[in-house]
């Protein structure tokens, strides 16, 4: 168990810099999720912590050790890979014992740890099978088992659930979370799935194009996204964005209507409204002309455009709504649930 400190971390492949000055302090026992679209550098960052990629500049510290120059084996970490990376020629038991044998642990101790991990993960009956005789979910558990028998300071997860079907993914997600809380091991988890990120992480690091957009708790990211990118990435369906101009009464929409909003210094802003924050209101200033309705059961998603313009809008309405194409709905939104961004810097504006 250890803290992890990333200081001014940069990674370049030749002249191309793919990670730019990443900073982050991870507390002991914390579950950190690194999330971002594909190609944002999240896996590279994880592999740098693991020691599978070299560090171009900056520093990684695990506990009180600088690990930049250490081999992966010397960093006291365990990693779960996307394709599980089990050793195909070894039984489940041998897979889990491999790292322990290298550490020259006593045979009795190895057996004790393997059995214990097998108990926790409920893979006891499969200990003598080969990985090819297991289902995807079982392989996933073996990969987890191989990580936990090592009793490392840090767990690293590289999109471990992306090869599982949707139902199993939700189940394994909960299990990983429970396991991590029970073991209290500092963990870094990489995913592109924002729901996975929100449900798993104590804190989320949102990466985009090699830059850290925001690093905070899921609720902070949802309530106060630091940039347009985070605002659009966290939350489903994604936030609506509208250009607006500011005035003493609030912000003026492209349709001409004015709604109450926090005061900011800029004249023109990018206005962000989450679909679930649009409240049906006969007197509301926001009109949506419906193109299509998605019925999700508990709620309905109205896809359409802001009345009289071509700005796409989505609203999430509780219950069943069956609106015809072209129908108009009016909504209002509470001022504290509006997000204002600078159109140039894409950063959040605060009053």
């Amino acid at each position: 168990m250890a803290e992890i400190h990333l200081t001014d971390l940069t990674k370049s492949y030749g002249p191309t810099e793919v990670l730019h000055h990443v900073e982050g302090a991870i507390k002991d026992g914390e579950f950190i999720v690194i999330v971002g679209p594909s190609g944002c550098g999240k896996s590279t960052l994880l592999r740098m912590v693991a020691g599978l990629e070299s560090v171009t500049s900056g520093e990684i510290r695990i506990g009180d050790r600088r690990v930049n120059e250490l081999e992966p084996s010397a960093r006291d970490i365990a990693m779960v890979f996307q394709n599980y990376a089990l050793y195909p020629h070894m039984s489940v038991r041998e897979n889990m014992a491999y790292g322990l044998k290298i550490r020259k642990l006593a045979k009795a101790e190895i057996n004790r740890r393997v059995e214990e991990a097998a108990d926790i993960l409920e893979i006891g009956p499969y200990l003598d099978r080969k990985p090819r005789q297991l289902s995807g979910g079982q392989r996933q558990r073996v990969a987890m088992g191989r990580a936990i028998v090592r009793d490392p300071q840090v767990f690293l997860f590289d999109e471990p659930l992306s090869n599982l079907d949707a139902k199993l993914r939700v189940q394994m997600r909960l299990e990983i979370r429970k396991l991590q809380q029970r073991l209290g091991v500092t963990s870094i988890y990489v995913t592109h799935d924002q729901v996975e990120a929100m449900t798993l992480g104590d804190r989320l690091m949102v990466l985009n194009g090699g830059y850290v957009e925001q690093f905070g708790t899921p609720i902070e990211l949802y309530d106060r996204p630091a940039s347009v990118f985070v605002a659009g990435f966290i939350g489903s369906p994604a936030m609506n964005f509208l250009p607006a101009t500011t005035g003493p009464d609030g912000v003026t929409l492209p349709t001409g209507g004015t709604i109450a909003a926090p005061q900011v210094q800029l004249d023109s802003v990018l206005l962000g409204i989450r679909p679930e924050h649009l409240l049906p209101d006969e007197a509301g200033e926001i009109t949506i002309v419906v193109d299509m309705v998605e019925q999700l059961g508990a709620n309905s998603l109205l896809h359409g455009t802001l009345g009289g313009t071509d700005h796409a809008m989505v609203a999430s309405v509780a219950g069943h709504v069956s609106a015809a194409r072209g129908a108009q709905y009016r909504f209002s939104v509470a001022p504290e649930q509006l997000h204002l961004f600078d159109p140039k810097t894409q950063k959040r504006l605060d009053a």
Partner: protein
Amino acid sequence: MLKRVHFPTSPLPYLLVAPQLAITLVFFIWPASQAMYQSFLIEDAFGLGSEFVWFENFQMLWEDQHYLDAFLRTAVFSTLVAALSMGVALILAGFAQRVVQGAMVYRTLLIWPYAVAPVLAGALWVFMFNPTLGIFPYFLEFFDIDWNHYLNGNQAMGLVILAAAWKQVAYNFLFYLAAMQSIPKSVIEAAAIDGAGPGRRFFTIILPLVSPTTFFLLVINMVYAFFETFGIIHAVTQGGPGSSTTILVYKVFNDGFVGLDLGGSAAQSVVLMVLVIAMTVVQFRYVERKVEY
């Protein structure tokens, strides 16, 4: 109900495979059947007539100490050639796989020896090890080794093994490299994180995972050593000194075309044919087992 697709019969498919069939018949089936037929005949001393003798030629082979010696020699020769060439290829592939920059250059250079004709490969090694002119005997002198493969049977055997193995390294290297590259990188990385150093990773992860390739190559290399090393031996030692490098396939040539014992030589070819068929069967039956990742 089972439905079958019926195509109208056409001579075209037969025409298309006809050239290949003709080649197989003329160059493989016909000579093989001739050899089988001839193995039942004994020629008279002047080559004017022959007598049908059933299995007498084979019987004579089993009673001929020279033939049994050649059998043992072939076993030693092929085992050493296979072990040496596969061992070297495995090590080279292990290193080549780790190379990132200039990988293509290394790989191309390592594949070159395969393109050298056996006789030329033999000639190269003869030059290098020529007792009076060669560079290696000169070096070996510093270690008080007196090299003369024209006189020393063991040295001659060593030289043909070296030449034959050298030529086969490239082929084995290609297969080993392909096998290693099909191992998912993350498996190797997982082993690295588990604390295994490069050596341990090689022996506990890579080697077991390329074992199907090892088995396949073992059969291929045995067949190579048994049959395709004729050119090298002919160029390097011509089976000598004495008969110390006369392996089975060379003895077939020697007894048939030099000794003119056509029946005995044909019988030896038939024995070799049975051996190669047996090895091919083994290969087809067991080589198909693959590793699943």
